[in-house]
């Protein structure tokens, strides 16, 4: 069994959307192909398809879990359902994007150093002295940017922030976003950038003239029931750290 979904709310929303799509598609098919059937028979058929889709989903999920544990890209369940996992590396390109919107107050990590196969931090650093950061057009929040680097054998962090579109989300942040749009990496060997939208969610994209190291994998699993019903799911298996480690003191309640 794979780990629990991190953002259950989002997952539930996604699940509902997919279910609606499937139901609509099923209804169209049923309307075209079985227009002569009685209403009671139609209702029974929809329930059966939902069950089949659930089986396909579970099989796809299990296949990802099996992939993470065993490294095998194919998976066959005991009931005959099967799934195939496709893994693609995130990174190794000159541009990286967040997985959709980054919610306000949540941080998005962009690794600028590779990881070893055991998950430890490697020594292959992003090769350019700067990167370009793009946010959604009209973004009116602020960005908290924490840039980690290695200098003379010491781990260091440079912190900066910008209020976009002349907003004043963070007192003291500059409204000149140039320092956030083009992030200077020249003070050492780049390790990591943590970018946190404040006040407003936005999609984040960084780009540069060098290849970014692997951020992890994007896993696509296609589950198929023995009756041929298929469901495809996607997830990211990325290098992550607890968000509180970005800062010095974090508390869910009061700090005094």
């Amino acid at each position: 069994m794979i780990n629990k979904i991190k953002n259950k709310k989002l997952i539930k929303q996604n699940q509902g959307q997919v279910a609606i799509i499937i139901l609509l598609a099923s209804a169209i098919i049923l309307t075209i192909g079985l227009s002569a059937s009685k209403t009671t028979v139609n209702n029974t058929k929809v329930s059966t398809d939902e069950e089949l889709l659930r089986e396909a989903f579970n099989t796809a999920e299990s296949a990802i879990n099996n992939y993470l544990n065993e490294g095998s890209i194919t998976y066959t369940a005991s009931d005959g359902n099967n799934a195939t996992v496709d893994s693609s590396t995130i990174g190794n390109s000159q541009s990286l994007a967040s997985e959709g919107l980054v919610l306000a107050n949540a941080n998005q990590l962009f690794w600028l150093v590779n990881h070893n196969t055991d998950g430890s931090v490697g020594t292959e650093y992003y090769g350019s002295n700067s990167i370009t950061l793009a946010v959604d057009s009209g973004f009116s929040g602020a960005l908290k940017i924490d840039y980690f680097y290695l200098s003379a054998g010491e781990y260091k962090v440079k912190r900066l922030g910008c209020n976009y579109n002349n907003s004043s989300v963070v007192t003291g942040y500059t409204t000149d976003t140039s320092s956030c749009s083009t992030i200077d990496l020249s003070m050492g060997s780049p390790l990591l950038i943590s970018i946190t939208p404040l006040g407003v969610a936005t999609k984040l994209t960084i780009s540069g003239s060098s290849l970014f190291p692997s951020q992890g994998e994007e896993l696509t699993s296609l589950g198929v029931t023995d009756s041929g019903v298929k469901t495809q799911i996607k997830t990211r298996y990325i290098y992550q750290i607890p968000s509180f480690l970005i800062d010095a003191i974090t508390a869910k309640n009061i700090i005094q």
Partner: protein
Amino acid sequence: MWSSEYISSTSEARCYVTDPNCNNTALCYQCAELSCGSKTHKGECPTWLGFVESNCSTTYPGGNPYTCCDCAEADFRCTSNSQCDDGSSCTTDTCSSGTCSNTDNGTCDITPPPDEPPDYECIWPYCLDSGYDLAANCSEDCESANHWLNEVYYICAESGSYYNCSNDVDGGIYSYDWEACYYCGGPCKCADEYGWCMEPSVGSTGRCNSYLTSRKWSTIPESIALCSRGTGVSTPVLNGNYWVWTCDGTDGTCGAAKGASVGCSAVANSPPIFNSLIIKNDKNITVPVETGNKNQICQTAFNRSRSVNFTVGASDPDGTADITNVTLTWNGNTITRKSSIGATTTFGTTFPSAYNSNSIYPFVVTITDSAGNTAVDTSRYFKTWDCKVSISGTIFDATDDGDPVCPSVGFTKQADPLALNFTSLAFTGGGIGVSMTTINSPNYNSGSNYLTWGINTNISSFNTDISLTDPKIRFKSLSSVSWNCPTNTYVDTTILDPYSTDPMSITADFSGILIQDSWWQASEGGVIGNSKVTGQIPITCTTNCQISLNGLVAAPTVENDTTKSLENSQSWFYSATPAKLANVNTNYSYFYSQYFVKKGIGTTLIGNKTITSISDLGSDTNYIYFIDGDLNINGNIVNTNNFLMIIVSGDITVSQDADRVDGILVANNIYANGASNTQLVFNGSLFAFNNVDFSRDYIDRVINNSTPAVVVNYNPKLIFNLPGSVAKVLTDWQWGN
């Protein structure tokens, strides 16, 4: 019938009337025939008039001794010391070669000689009332013409057998009327043949008053007779170094010639001269005179001693030997002479407290010479007082003004007594500590204690636990409007004019910054709270005064709980309702599940733990420890490895015994309390599911004014040394074709 003889004296006449056979006296036997001729009977020479009896020879007429002597006016030259007695016990009277001298014998130096010369001397018995002369007092002429008549009359009254004639004036007839003696008081038969004319006598030579001539005079005293015989015929005039005058001779008797006049002279005398008065301390070191030609006993030059020595310098044109006395007084008090009188005369005294006064008085130097002339100096003034200076003042709070700047900045707001904790104040100067007896915080006064005038660095010291840092002082005299602003907190008592009659009192105020409450700080990392972040950056902080140095502070409520504004306490802060950046889904169970359960990483300890070092946790290969309970950290946690993470289900409490804790701390609550002399430094990251509360303080609380008691140094190294097995996680997923 007139006798062919002359009687030479009344004694001779008495002889005749006393002895019926021979003038009523054996000595006068045949006295009418026995005459001394040009000599006088022994004992009859009028030595009281300056005559000298000499060359006596005795015959024995009738078997009785009869002695006659030369009697001549004496040359007024002394022959014995007693003749030179000037009537003063202060001098040694000496007759040398016929000249008198009166030398100061030192016995009466302190007591000035009498202002007036003695009354005209009359030598017994000639001027005593009970004697021959009925002169009422010695001021009368001893040579009264009534001299003899009264004596005769007296005899007459005794016997009633004779009578004297009243026609007895100089040059007149002294008669004896035998017959008339039968009835005393009858008419005098001055023409009787038994009368005698007084022997004609040449008038006496005028005589100078020896009192005048034996002394030196700046002026001739008018109250003293110029002549002891005769009459001064001229007013003394200065002729060179002498006063000169003339004494006329007296008239002769029985038509004899008047005595000759003599010239008199007395040495003219110059008054003494005051040269200097030098004041010296108890070590005989000269004390410099102060402006206004004055001194006062509290001058430091007096060595805090009330013993003072003096040297009077004097001179006299007639020679130092002419100075007979030197005295020194102050405010009516005589200062004891310590040396003989001379060109320099020393004095000394220890001024008793009874002499203390707010007023200034002159020294009176009096120099007297042999002529009684004086020189007086009163130009040098002196004050003796108790040197006590009272002091009082107020302590002000300059916290809102930054550093106080004398005399005004920071001296307007009185310190809050409760916050100040002002319990004692002492001033120490010259090795003497003076405590203020009355502390009515924030005010004080010296009460019955006093500073000592002349000490210019009375260093102040408060009770050690007063909540006042780096106080500044201002001080002034009570009556002044201008403040003094020393660089150090001392009081200079010499600002007071010691010669003033104003109260010797100083006002000294202090101003400082009150000691602040303890505070904490994050460095190189942000501070994220989902409810509130309360900083305590003190107003006194001057450098690196941020809740988070180089980091963001974010919470629905961000505040700085001092008089220092949030804007001045934090460069970047996100204070708004949505500012909840902490991940609410992570807790002990989450980490325990993710790391320990799923990855098999970490060591789990059950129950409350107290550790004093990292080794107390065990030896987990990944340096991840789970404690299902509370954790008390009572010692330094020094991590020499690349990673350390302690995840506690309960609370982490760091006691005052620890001053360094390395690693990532995760707990329900994280506390740092107690008080220490050292700063508590976290090197890592702290994450609390509930609160982070730093109440740790400095024992020496003044450090709070500039330095946080707790610092959390963010350590990025820890991120990159997470165990690789926990570095990769799944994120959200999407579901679709």
